[in-house]
């Protein structure tokens, strides 16, 4: 997450900077772990189906749920890293103040939208707490909760980008 380290316009207090860094470490680790786990489980699935000749019954569901969590946990990071592309040609032509205002309005609307998703996301996850996943036999609360958690994280990232100024520039070589 952007903590305003290089940006003189606004700096987070040192405690918060440390919290943000620790948070980003945890999220990055989660992303690395989940993608590695998906690749390994996918490999195991192929191995068991084509070499051993007995399909794993839990692998597909586990991979799907790990990917859903990875997507929601890393979505905020993707926003901060400028991976979520928009049409910025027009606002780039605006004078700096107007551009700032346009970005602010856009981000406030994003946060409002995400707040709605969090609210109903909690409702959605809570309603399904009694359901269990077919193969893994875990409560769907832990699976469906990813939507609300991911949306809360996205709100935090959008707020951090707004407070600290610029998004990290889009690193080429990514996206489609």
């Amino acid at each position: 997450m952007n903590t305003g380290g290089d940006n003189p316009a606004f700096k987070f207090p040192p405690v918060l900077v440390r919290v943000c860094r620790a948070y980003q470490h945890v999220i990055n680790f989660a992303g690395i772990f989940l993608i590695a786990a998906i690749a390994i489980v996918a490999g195991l699935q192929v191995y068991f189906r084509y070499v051993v000749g007995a399909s794993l019954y839990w692998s597909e569901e586990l991979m799907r749920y790990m990917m859903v969590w990875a997507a929601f946990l890393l979505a905020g990071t993707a926003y901060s890293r400028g991976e979520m592309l928009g049409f910025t040609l027009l606002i780039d032509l605006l004078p700096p103040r107007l551009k700032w205002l346009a970005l602010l309005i856009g981000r406030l609307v994003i946060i409002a939208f995400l707040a709605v998703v969090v609210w109903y996301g909690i409702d959605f996850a809570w309603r399904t707490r009694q359901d269990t996943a077919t193969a893994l036999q875990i409560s769907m609360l832990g699976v469906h909760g990813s939507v609300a958690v991911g949306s809360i994280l996205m709100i935090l990232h959008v707020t951090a980008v707004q407070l600290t100024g610029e998004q990290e520039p889009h690193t080429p070589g990514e996206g489609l």
Partner: protein
Amino acid sequence: MEALVISFVVLLLLGVPVVFVLGISMLAYFVATDQLQFLLVLPQRMFAGIDEFVLLAIPLFILAGSLMEVGGLTHRLLEFANACVGRFRGGVSLTAIWASFLFGGVSGSAAADAAALGAVLIPEMKRQGYNNDYAAALMGTSSLMAPLIPPSIAMVLYGALSNTSIARLFVAGIVPGVMLAVALTIYAAWVARRRDYPRRKPPTRSEFVRAALAAGPVMILPVIIVVGIRGGVFTPTEAAAVASIYAFLIAAFYYRVLSFASLGRALLNTAVISAAIFMLVAMANIAAFIFSIEQIPERVVNALFSISENPVAVLLMVNVVLLFLGMILDTVGILILTVPALVGIGHVLHMDPVHLGVMVVFNCLIGFVTPPVGLCLFIVAGVGKTTIDKVAWHALPMIAIAIVILLLITFIPQLVLVLPNLIVG
């Protein structure tokens, strides 16, 4: 419906990322039509949209590409392409085209291709006396081959959104990819003759063999993918898993360049890029819900066919609309918004869904190099330290070439379908 369209346009112009533009306009629709009981549908549809086994192919293919990249394949592919075509006039520009072609067999992403190869080849072309803007434009246009040569993230997405066989889509992209490579080669050779660009002395036999051996394992990857999913031996997701494991083994044990740090970087990059794509797919699933309530695909199809019932005219209109969308939106966004209606159009015209898919993906790809917001133009202009408008000017003839190929594959379906019919059956 007006609320949806207005908020979509306003937010897009405000520079809001497309993923949120989609989500917010869907929310605006529910609020404006007073259907608040559907708000619980938002998280539910978002979850269901990405909880799909076939979509797992996307992170796994991205991972395979990232691993090959940190495994130093860019350099090896370049050396091999250079050994093959470097001896002709304008050798390094031909190398750029064919290295892109080879790179496409590892990565399914045009942006990754433009960035990785552009960083090496644009400075090199400049050093050999090429016009810098021309070099950047050629690199940008060549990168369009990456999503045509299997694997291809755009094809996985199209297949998932339209329920089309991904195996057939993958194979069907090969002929258009080769056509683009050959056409660009002819153009670059012609430019090189006119401007008297240098050639390189041909490699000795042992140099050639060495380059081929170094690049060989990389070039086997697309073969594994195509052979693997041929006739449904593997699902696309399983093929992607095999590809990423293969890439890991090659990078770690054959090239021996994989460190824990670079492995971590490849995994993290994969997670972040996939998260961005998956959020778009999540929002798309809300859009699909509203589109079906409002019968948008049917309305679009009716509107198009009320203008003309001539299939040629309809397909031309579809291509023009997609080219226009390609100027302002990225591929994932276009696919998400248009696939439901396009499938309807294809149905009325009795088009093979694979033919339609390749046409649509190729069309979206051209958007990567058309101003004002072509992603690959941005990348090569950045790498070449020049401006978009200068590169775009030099890219114009190449865009024209791509559009000619688009028209050929639109109106001669056999070009697209011959390989999948032959290989996948």
